[in-house]
């Protein structure tokens, strides 16, 4: 890397190399989408800007990657959106249950101009969000028990992601939250350390959870997007034209990822049903879940001013329909 302040000063021989670290495997759809993003950026800048991807958590956990981004060791990272709440409390919103009505609503809001403006407004917090990637809707699954209403969760030990919003949600729903790393979930399910967990459908197959859990209740309590962010310090050094190219490539990768994701989920459901014998329960009382978690959303609006603002923004994005 050189000392040029403007990205136009770079050439294919002496490119601006942007390191992008993330924790997903190279077979994950989001990794593939980001590879496409990297290719498009290189192509449209004639090789002046190169995105170098470090997958598999090679450089550390999401929190570490965020710290590294702030320190200027890496230029970009992909994290689960609520992970950014440390730096900007509005990102707590994405961890809340039933913020989006369904997939169409989710895409409509996330692709809106309002959301894009919010994404680029966080420079003071040290980063800007280039785009998001869907990771579907999360639902509960257990060895043999359907979860149709919050009452079905009562007393069950459910693994959740290690985020405040996720443990809070579980408490509001009446289950017992157990925070553990994803890698421990399979054996813990098998041996009964936990009674169930929650994730999107692909965890049944890629994580082999479907070998143990035979009932997947499609309650779709949360749609937590991944976000691709860049260090504000790096973003500032990029010329407006190149910024435009990067944003366009990012949005293209988001659209491409939607298709890949749908296919991945479809295949996961098929494989889970046909070869693993997982039953999908669709007659879930979503309204009951939504009611049970409504106080949580109010509490978060009270506690985090950014959440209130972003929820208003989301409503505004819906209003233009």
């Amino acid at each position: 890397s050189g000392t040029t302040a403007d990205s136009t000063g770079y050439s294919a021989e002496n490119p601006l190399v942007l390191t992008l670290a993330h924790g997903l495997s190279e077979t994950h759809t989001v990794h593939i989408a980001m590879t496409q993003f990297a290719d498009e950026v290189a192509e449209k800048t004639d090789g002046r800007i190169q995105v170098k991807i470090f997958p598999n958590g090679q450089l550390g956990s999401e929190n570490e990657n965020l710290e590294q981004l702030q320190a200027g060791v890496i230029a970009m990272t992909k994290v689960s959106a609520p992970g950014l709440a440390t730096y900007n409390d509005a990102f707590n919103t994405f961890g809340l249950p039933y913020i989006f009505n369904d997939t169409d609503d989710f895409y409509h809001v996330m692709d809106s101009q309002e959301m894009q403006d919010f994404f680029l407004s966080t420079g003071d917090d040290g980063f800007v969000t280039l785009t998001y990637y869907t990771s579907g809707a999360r639902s509960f699954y257990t060895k043999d028990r359907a979860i149709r209403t919050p009452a079905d969760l009562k007393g069950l030990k459910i693994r959740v992601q290690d985020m405040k919003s996720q443990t809070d949600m579980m408490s509001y729903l009446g289950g017992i939250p157990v925070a553990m790393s994803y890698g421990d979930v399979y054996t813990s399910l098998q041996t009964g350390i936990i009674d169930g967990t929650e994730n999107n459908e692909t965890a049944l197959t890629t994580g082999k959870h479907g070998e143990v859990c035979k009932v997947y209740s499609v309650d779709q309590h949360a749609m937590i997007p991944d976000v691709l962010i860049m260090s504000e310090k790096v973003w500032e050094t990029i010329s407006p034209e190149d910024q435009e190219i990067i944003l366009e490539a990012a949005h293209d990768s988001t659209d491409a990822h939607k298709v890949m994701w749908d296919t991945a989920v479809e295949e996961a459901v098929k494989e889970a049903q046909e070869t693993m014998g997982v039953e999908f329960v669709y007659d879930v009382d979503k309204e009951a879940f939504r009611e049970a978690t409504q106080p949580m959303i109010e509490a978060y609006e009270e506690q985090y001013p950014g959440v209130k603002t972003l929820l208003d923004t989301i409503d505004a994005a819906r209003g233009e329909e």
Partner: protein
Amino acid sequence: MSITMTTVILFAVFGVLLFLGVPISISIVASSIVTAMSTLSWDQITFITMQKMNSGVESFSLLAVPLFILAGNIMNNGGIAKRLVNFAQLFVGKIPGSMAQANILGNMLFGALSGSSVAAASAMGGCISPIEEENGYDPAYSAAANIASAPTGLLIPPTSAFIVYSTVAGGVSISTLFMAGYIPGILMGLCCMVVAFIGAKKAGMKATGIDHSQSIAKTVWDAVPSLLLIVIVIGGIVSGIFTATEGAGVAVLYCLILSIIYKSIDFKGFLGILLNSAKTSGIILFLISASSAMSFVMAYSGIPAAISNGLMSLTDNKYIIFLLMNIILLVIGMFMDITPAILIFTPIFLPIATSFGMTEIQFGVMLIFNMCLGNITPPVGSVLFVGCGIGHVSIEQVTSKLIPYFAALVAALLAVTYIPALSLGLPSLMGLI
């Protein structure tokens, strides 16, 4: 700067510091820092070094390491080790060189519990070598048997080596690794027994028989609580009653209660054990911290990819690649201790091994088996040092007696490398994979 240059700088600086006698942890950090200087600013380097040194040990499962060290030290002082020796003697008493056989069996049992080869070597060696001396054993013969078999406990679960490996390998299932370690660990013990038997025959040693100063029933009865620990800890972990870390905590509590019942420990003694264990843990945790900094620098500058490309450019025959890996690890193991070696070489070799179809589980077993050899090979090996110290022999004396053990163990290592069923048979039988 080219990747070759970066790799050379990292290993050259590391090697020079290591051989000058700089502590391994500091050698690791210093060489990482020097390597990072070509790409990062000083502030970024100190930031990333400190971040990695903090997060390197920020793992719940890693707690099992200090807890098993503590449990092992309590056992060592609590009369539990002695009872295991007496029990083992029941099975091997009629064989020539039977005390050495008891030592090996004792190491397998004790090592199984404590997961520390050094603790096993000192506990078993300490109990048996006086008796062996009395029976006219050659001290070098006794020490070699003790040293060669002490690392079996690193393979026979529970073992902190697998937990360390699982952490660096990115969360490989610990219970599966534990199951996978059984057969190779027992194989290692059996190899030692055969070599010790042949050595005793050649030297014309006679069977010493079973100690009849107390009845067999009493020896068994005395050993029951110690053996029960194996059942509780391993049974608990494998059946999922608790995690490996929790199992380690239960082991500490159990050993402590047993030692109190045996009246072999008092508060002051316990305080000493606690301090000693905490210091040993601190040294190991700090090494793990340092290695995470090195892993980052290696990943960031693309060194593992470069080494694996270099290795694969030599040949694409997987049998030769696995052989090369083992040779590199054996050479490294002569000089480096097991924990840093696991931490440094897992990120380099695991991706190569998996790309040739070796599972993460089998690779882990192969790596630890290889490292067990490093633990006992001269010139540097913690078990080697402890075994020589306890057995009152020099490294030169014991080395000639260790050679047949090396030969047998290398053969066993190759079997573990090329026969996946040795590692994967038991876990798949139990439905873990």
